[in-house]
């Protein structure tokens, strides 16, 4: 740690240096953005491309980069006035303790809030739909967290299992007329089966190769769904997928429906509320199973494998079954979420299962802190709910996600909620700050 004194005597010098730094950065930004921001190729009326200029946007962006670089060079640069010395050395440890004590309340508070959402916003269909969407991603994030966060296997094709679940339900329900409650476990089993199929070939691969292979696998599944017209309907997808029933009672108006049986006045909101509680239950199931599995030998084997695969193998853990179960269980939850997606939408097509979707779920898991259940939920809520509230910035959503992923990797590779509760402990449970733990790889 640097001391404060020499830095403050150098402060005059450091301002000049910072200005020089910032000017250089702004020049680079100008080079980067001159063609991409300053000019825009747009199809004109005749259909040919025409060029339009946007110099004010370019100037503003370069000025913003200059200002940002100046502040950064002044306070965080090499010859910077160090900010760290204002913070006590034990900050990291204390921060970790604070996070863990806060998270004790945040989790239950979020759960109670989630349970109350349909009651509080019963009249507000928009909020309910948004809640369903966020919870779907929370569930996907928790499912992917088993593979990435616990087992340390970077899976870039997670959306394939989501697709398998969705198409399983859609095809079973439209072809054989099976009900949602029969199809749900079947979809989960089928997705888990595909997880194992994917798992076998990648067993011997290293971290980064494994990521690329899962990505290729996800794309192959999507392309097959897109081109196998006779089976999947190709780009037109599958429509009129049956909606779920309340254990056999349909959400319709008339005899034998949910509303009539319970003596309620029919309202279309009943189904939305039911769907909300359904995905909440599925997500919580994912969470409980994951937390339980972490305590079992298989969960500990996952975490051991994430930390060091070679040490793990030399201690007699069968990494083959460990990896396969991680893939299978993660895929199974993806499959559950997929069949929920199919029944909620009533229509699915390969459009919904692109790599962008995998990247979105991955971003949620990375931002939430790989391995942290609460972090994933908070990340999904903030990133998806937050952007939904500011619709005009929708276009910038993935841009922000991308920057967040890079910055998180640079600053806090363990994610925003970076503490780890050890699964085993002697007398008391101690949270470990992310910075004290070896980053996986």
């Amino acid at each position, binding site marked *: 740690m640097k001391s404060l004194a020499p830095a403050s005597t150098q402060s005059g010098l450091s301002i000049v240096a910072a200005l020089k730094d910032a000017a250089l950065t702004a020049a*680079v930004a100008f*080079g*980067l953005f*001159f*063609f*991409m921001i300053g*000019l*825009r*190729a*747009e*199809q004109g009326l005749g*259909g040919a*491309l*025409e*060029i339009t200029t946007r110099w004010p946007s370019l100037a503003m962006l370069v000025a913003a980069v200059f200002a940002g670089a100046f502040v950064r060079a002044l306070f965080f640069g090499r010859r910077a006035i160090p900010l760290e010395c204002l913070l006590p050395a034990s900050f990291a440890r204390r921060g970790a303790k604070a996070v863990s004590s806060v998270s004790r309340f945040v989790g239950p508070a979020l759960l109670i809030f989630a349970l109350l959402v349909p009651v509080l916003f019963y009249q507000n269909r928009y909020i309910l739909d948004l809640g369903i969407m966020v919870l779907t991603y929370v569930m996907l994030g928790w499912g992917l967290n088993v593979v990435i966060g616990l087992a*340390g296997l*970077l899976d*870039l094709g997670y959306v394939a299992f989501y697709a398998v679940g969705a198409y399983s339900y859609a095809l079973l329900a439209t072809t054989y007329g099976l009900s949602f409650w029969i199809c749900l476990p079947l979809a989960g089993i089928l997705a888990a089966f595909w997880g194992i199929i994917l798992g076998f*070939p*990648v067993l*011997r*691969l*290293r*971290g*980064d*190769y494994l*990521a*690329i*292979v899962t990505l*290729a*696998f996800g*794309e*192959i599944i999507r*392309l*097959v769904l*897109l*081109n196998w017209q006779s089976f999947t309907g190709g780009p037109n997808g599958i429509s009129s997928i049956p909606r779920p029933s309340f254990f056999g009672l349909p959400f319709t108006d008339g005899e034998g429906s949910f509303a009539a049986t319970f003596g309620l006045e029919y309202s279309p909101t009943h189904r939305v509320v039911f769907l909300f509680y359904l995905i909440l239950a599925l997500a919580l199931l994912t969470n409980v199973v994951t937390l339980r599995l972490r305590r079992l030998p298989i969960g500990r084997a996952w975490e051991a494998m994430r930390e060091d695969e*070679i040490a793990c193998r030399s201690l007699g853990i069968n990494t083959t079954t460990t990896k396969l179960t991680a893939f299978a269980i993660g895929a199974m939850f993806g499959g559950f979420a997929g069949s929920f997606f199919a029944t909620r939408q009533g229509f699915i097509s390969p459009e919904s299962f692109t*790599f962008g979707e995998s*990247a979105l779920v*991955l*971003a949620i898991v*990375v931002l939430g802190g790989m391995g942290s259940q609460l972090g994933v939920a908070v990340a999904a809520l903030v990133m998806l709910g937050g952007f939904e509230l500011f619709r005009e910035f929708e*276009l*910038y959503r*993935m*841009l922000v*996600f*991308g*920057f*967040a*992923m*890079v910055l998180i*990797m*640079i600053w806090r*590779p363990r994610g925003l909620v970076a503490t780890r509760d050890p699964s085993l402990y002697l007398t008391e449970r101690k949270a470990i700050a992310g910075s004290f733990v*070896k*980053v*996986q*790889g």
Partner: protein
Amino acid sequence: MEYFVQQLIIGVTLGSIYGLIAIGYTMVYGIIGMINFAHGDVFMIGGFVALIAFLALVSIGITAVPVALLLVLLIAMATTALYGWTVERFAYRPLRQSSRLAPLISAIGMSIILQNFAQVSQGARVKPLPPLVGGSHTLMSSDAFNVEISNIQIIIVVTTLALMAVFSWIVTRTRLGRDMRACEQDLKMASLLGVNIDRTISLTFVIGAALAAVAGIMYLLYYGVIDFYIGFVAGVKAFTAAVLGGIGSLPGAMLGGLLIGLIETFWSAYFSIEYKDVAAFSILIVALIFLPTGILGRPEVEKV
């Protein structure tokens, strides 16, 4: 026979484009051992900059196609090289000490950034460009089928060969090339022996991005359309090429590119055009599992 030769010509053209992108993957992997997931999107940026620069040149009155193309080439290479440099400086250099997965996730983030940056700044719609280089020659002809090679195909293959020659010269004969090969063998030892590794790695990214920009221009001229999504599929295929040829090996990247281009073309011609991407992705999986060192690669020994 004529049909076969025609497909061969198309395949070699496509393979040249993939090969140029693959060099970027293989060089970066060789030196710092990471998959530069954003490289495909750097290629896409190269295509976009070329398109915009061309339109801008036309609008200020430079309409002679050879002059404009040469200027576009220089502009696109310079700007895209700057992108390559920035990506390395911003997203990868701070992570050089960490494990394998952190830079990969950072690279995926960078890829998302570049894709959405292009989408936000230039719009999501496909950008068409009327063909700039016309004309073709008939090589063989039978009553049913003429084998043609177009001027643009000749330009693509010749440019690729020329760039490969220049690039091989850089790697084998110059100080920079020696530094690069030293870094590839042992990064820490190279830095102890006075190689400026930061500079070498930066220049690797710059060269890779400049080559990707050339590939982007070729793609633009050959297909005549461009959108913000082309980088993803082309990137994965070029990575497949790099793996197939042996990652870390430069002739391997070119060979792999040619193979992928030929396989894709013949698959489309003789089996089904819908499944051509499935074929390429399957080759990636098969190559990584059964031939992880590639055709010309060295076996990698994992040190514990």
